[in-house]
């Protein structure tokens, strides 16, 4: 069975036709063309022989005993009956509900909407607007930091005022000294 000889490939332009020829799926014209070619081409003959040897082996189906098919049929029929029963059971459940189902579902939908508005405090933006982007905490200045900076600003302002007062007093004192000196500039 084993053959270590290199594989002989069929002529490329005939390979597909040979597969169809094996399955009997080519037209009369194609079949005549293939047969004429086979008469002269050893590689393609070998290819077709390979197909005839291999493909039927692969297709070999297991023959099941009649008991298997009887059991198969009974099971399938039983499953079909169950499936149909289930379908009718659901239908029988839903049938009496149909008259009031539509208003009931409508009322429920309105109730959900009202509850949503009430608990959302009537703010429709909650439903419409996208949520604000989350900014990392370390970037945000917290309230204490703001107070600190405000205090610093205030202290700085006070310091400036004090410096200004000191400068004015010094200037005044200097003026007074000049005025008190003889020959000083009036």
């Amino acid at each position: 069975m084993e053959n270590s000889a290199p594989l002989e490939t069929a002529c490329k332009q005939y390979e597909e036709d040979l597969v169809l020829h094996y399955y009997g799926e080519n037209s009369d014209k194609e079949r005549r063309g293939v047969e004429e070619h086979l008469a002269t081409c050893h590689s393609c003959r070998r290819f077709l022989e390979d197909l005839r040897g291999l493909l039927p082996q692969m297709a070999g189906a297991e023959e099941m005993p009649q008991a298997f098919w009887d059991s198969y049929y009974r099971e399938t029929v039983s499953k079909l009956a169950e499936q149909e029963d289930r379908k009718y059971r659901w239908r029988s459940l839903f049938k009496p509900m149909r008259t009031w189902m539509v208003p009931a579902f409508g009322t429920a939908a309105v109730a959900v909407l009202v509850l949503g508005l009430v608990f959302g405090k009537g703010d429709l933006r909650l439903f419409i607007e996208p949520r604000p982007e989350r900014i990392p905490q370390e970037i945000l200045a917290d309230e204490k930091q703001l107070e600190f900076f405000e205090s610093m600003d205030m202290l700085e302002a006070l310091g400036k005022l004090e410096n200004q007062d000191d400068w004015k007093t010094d200037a005044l004192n200097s003026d007074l000294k000049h005025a008190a000196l003889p020959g000083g500039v009036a």
Partner: protein
Amino acid sequence: MADQQQMRDEELVALSQQGDRHCFEILVRRYMEKAYHIAFNFTRDTETAKDLSQDAFLRAYANLKQFDGRSSFYTWFYRIVVNLCLDHARRRRRVAWESLDYTSDEPAEQRQLADSTYAPDQQAIAGEAKRRVDQTLETMPKKQRTAFLLRNHQGLSIADVAKVMKTTEGTVRVYLHRAVAALRQSLVEFV
């Protein structure tokens, strides 16, 4: 009832669509072997093939109202079976191919004992060939594999394979050619 047994598929389908389950049961009997064998070709497992093919009948019956008669019942039904098998293969991520020339579930040792003419070297060669075919089919694109299994194993015509696969006959020819060429290539040492 005897008349119903003789009815054509289309007539049985029409009556089944009106709620006559018995007519559908006739279709089950008519197609159960084919359905099972397709599923077996894909799965190589008796129980799985049985479950999948039975599931196909259940789905076909549940969706029978959607069948508009533009194609034949069996191409429509084959499509259901094939789709279930492909879904199953996707879930399992493998398609097992247990045997080339026989498909028994018995362990190899028991088969060898039962068949004294089965030489050990033949067994080894057959085992290797099976493995190669298994590998080739497993790695083959699913459309090529489907076309090959439906034509080679189920004996569907290329026209019917095209209907089942909802594609053209030309495309099926290409799939079939590629599948056969790949399988032959994989078995080069055994031909």
